[in-house]
């Protein structure tokens, strides 16, 4: 579309103005010009339903700044693939002995006042995963590290050696998501949430065996909150790139 008009300036001069608008493909150069200092954040870029094994996932939000492209996905449940043990008749994670058998998978549903996010940051143009985070957010937007293993102090995930390369953004996100789903919570970094991390994990993630089969997730017991069992964090990267 082209618009042509004459403009009279304050000093009396008259100008012929032509404004041309045309749709262009959002390429790397244009993204870079927008995203030099502040990230561009886009909510709900696509449905996370296109990811494998994605029940209850929210939409994928993107944050773009220079060569960083960070995807945020809200989790409806957290897959706990780890060793468990019995404590007071309930199944609780045995993160201290996280490398021992047997391994179970329990899907833990976050409390209503917790928003749980899986974040993946990719570096352009190589389209490889740089860092991943698992972040819990309270109703006023404070960030927390859950009492789990395989998480550094700032909730960055230790994901081991894995081939995250892909030809498209969604390829890379899918690979990161699949690896997250299928990986085991081991004993690595279990102490990074503080000395009480292991006991806190047993208070937060509890499942009661049902007759004849199955498990029921138990609420966090009175006197505790998920915030008190977690560690408050302040990470500039998360603050800048998370898309809530």
């Amino acid at each position, binding site marked *: 579309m082209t618009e042509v008009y004459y403009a009279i300036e304050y000093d009396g001069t008259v100008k012929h103005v032509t404004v041309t608008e045309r749709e262009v493909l959002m390429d790397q150069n244009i993204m870079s010009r927008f995203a030099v200092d502040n990230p561009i954040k886009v909510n709900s870029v696509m449905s996370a339903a296109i990811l494998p094994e994605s029940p209850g996932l929210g939409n994928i939000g993107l944050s773009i700044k220079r060569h960083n492209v960070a995807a945020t996905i809200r989790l409806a449940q957290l897959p706990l693939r780890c060793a468990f043990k019995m404590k007071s008749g309930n199944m609780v994670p045995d993160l201290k002995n996280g490398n021992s058998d047997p391994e179970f998978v329990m899907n833990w549903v976050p409390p209503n006042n917790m928003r749980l996010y899986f974040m993946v940051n990719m570096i352009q143009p190589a389209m490889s995963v740089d860092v991943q985070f698992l972040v819990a957010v309270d109703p006023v937007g*404070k960030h927390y*590290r859950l009492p789990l293993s395989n998480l550094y102090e700032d909730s960055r995930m230790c994901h081991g050696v894995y081939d995250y390369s892909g030809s498209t953004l969604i390829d890379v996100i899918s690979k990161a998501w699949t690896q997250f789903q299928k990986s085991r919570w081991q004993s690595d970094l279990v102490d990074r949430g503080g000395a009480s991390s292991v006991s806190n994990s047993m208070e937060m993630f509890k499942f009661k065996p049902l007759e004849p089969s199955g498990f029921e997730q138990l609420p966090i017991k009175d006197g505790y909150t998920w915030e008190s069992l977690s560690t*408050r964090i*302040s*990470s*500039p990267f998360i603050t800048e790139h998370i898309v809530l």
Partner: protein
Amino acid sequence: MQLTVKFGSDTYTRVYAEGTTIGQVLADHDLKAVTGWGDNVRAVVSGVEQGANVLAPDGGIIVVETKANTKQN
């Protein structure tokens, strides 16, 4: 002297004695109680990480961030 301390989405203004160091601010029990930060934090002033013995900037802003230590294999 007055200091502004930021931790995540929280901002606190506190008055400290002259000569207070960054390390003393990070160890401030009241701040630790309200923010929930532990011992594993670092202080950043104007984008630069500050050592524990550095004097806190009078009237300045200290951003407290969670340290992400690397794994020791």
